[in-house]
């Protein structure tokens, strides 16, 4: 029996230790941000590999998610004779929840895992160590540009996801199911509030972008420098990101939309 408690103690100590190290790591990232801002070219290259390369995935997924909501929503809403609310349903679910959450999950799988693997492999092949010996701080040169690129790309991707999803819902609702075009947009405009919905969704995506890239770069930097270590770190990035996104989404939703 005591052994179980001991195991629990060891596990929780391990978690706190990692949390502590990742926080210190984050402080180091923050300290090196000014050095990256004066060299925007580093950032542009990373926005390309983190953001632009995730773009097509986000575009296609957003389109289909919007189309599915429209299709499902139409059949449910038509039972109540409220097809006119389809636009509201598509827009509200995308802007508030699915846009930030699904694009963050996709982002973690596409860009987050790639970041971890890249940094982990650089560590394994002594590139980070080599940089340190060339008096180049690997956090400032490698980690921080990637972190900032993630932070910038994520809200853009989530916004594109929501926008294309709403258009997808429009194609299905208005084009295929024949609901009134004017109703689709005007009901949406009447019910979706800029501050309450759009801005809150944007805040969510910024927070998710921060969390996912932070997890990804930390896991890569902290990976055990073997091929197995890097593969485990990559898996952890995706799993932890997904878990953290869903948990934080619940907390944020409760704070933003629920009057708790």
């Amino acid at each position, binding site marked *: 029996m005591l052994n179980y408690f001991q195991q629990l103690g060891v596990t929780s100590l391990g978690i706190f230790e990692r949390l502590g190290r990742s926080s210190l790591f984050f402080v180091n990232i923050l300290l090196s941000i000014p050095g990256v801002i004066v060299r925007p070219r580093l950032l542009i290259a990373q926005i390309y590999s983190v953001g632009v390369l995730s773009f097509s995935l986000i575009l296609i997924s957003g389109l289909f998610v919007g189309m599915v909501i429209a299709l499902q929503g139409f059949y449910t809403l038509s039972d109540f004779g409220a097809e006119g609310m389809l636009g509201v349903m598509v827009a509200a679910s995308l802007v508030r929840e699915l846009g930030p959450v699904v694009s963050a999950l996709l982002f973690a799988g596409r860009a987050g895992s790639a970041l971890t693997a890249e940094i982990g492999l*650089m560590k394994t092949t002594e*590139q980070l160590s*080599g940089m340190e010996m060339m*008096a*180049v701080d690997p956090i400032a040169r490698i980690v921080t540009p990637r972190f900032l690129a993630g932070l910038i790309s994520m809200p853009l991707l989530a916004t594109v996801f929501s926008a294309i999803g709403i258009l997808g819902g429009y194609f299905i609702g208005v084009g295929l199911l024949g609901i009134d075009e004017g109703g689709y947009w005007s009901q949406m405009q009447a019910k979706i509030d800029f501050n309450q919905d759009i801005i809150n969704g944007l805040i969510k995506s910024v927070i998710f972008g921060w969390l996912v890239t932070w997890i990804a770069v930390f896991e890569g930097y902290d990976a055990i420098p073997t091929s197995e270590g890097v593969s485990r770190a990559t898996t952890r990035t995706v799993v932890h990101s997904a878990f953290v996104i869903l948990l934080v989404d619940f907390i944020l939703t409760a704070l933003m939309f629920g009057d708790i």
Partner: protein
Amino acid sequence: MDLSEHDPLIKIKNVHFSRGSKLIFDGVNMDIQRGKVTAIMGPSGTGKTTLLKLIGGQLRPSSGTIEVDGENVHRLRHKQLYQLRKKMGMLFQSGALLTDISVFGNVAFPLREHTKLPESMIRHLVLMKLQAVGLRGARDLMPAELSGGMARRVALARAIALDPMMIMYDEPFTGQDPISMGVLVRLIRLLNDVLGLSSIIVSHDVQETCAIADYVYLVSNGKVVEHGSPKQLADSDSQWSQQFMQGMADGPVPFHYAAKGYAKDLLGLEA
């Protein structure tokens, strides 16, 4: 800072270091002279690479001091340490080239990071350094297209890009064919003499290392067991240096990893 020519470049005093519960260094003392090629040799797993990382300030000893060019490496602030590292070159075992940029970009990397030289000047410098290692023609290749020996030469060109005062070589000869081994041996000696560097070679390749080293430290079990010129060591009657220099399987360094009794082990008896 006008340190005398005879003052050692690196002074290692009574350094202890352990990784986890495993003791790696147990009171190591060394003096590494300026302008010389100093070799640190010992069996695999004695932490020779760790020693280089301690000198470079990437690791911190649990006790003892390491002075490089009169400065205590582990007392320096972050900025000063980075300043000192610009004067140290290090050649990693794998070469540690940045895989996403070309050979040219790799050699230019420290110059671009640390200097504000115009691009034409950087081009000149990079081509000079590549010429010195005989790879000027390979400037547009990517690191993945290089053989192991070529990658090490590129890394060497990169290490001398900032004209350091010393270069540390981590196992430069491991896994090289005889030709590239010969090229590297020649290059290390040549660069040391022509550029007036101080070189530290960590290796277990006895013949190649002894051919170019001026002074050798033999390390085993966390301690310096012997030191002297290669000739002195070869003539030494210490059992230890005989075993290492001649590559005998058994001796003070046992063939068997520490284990319980063989017979007991086979019979499955608990010790």
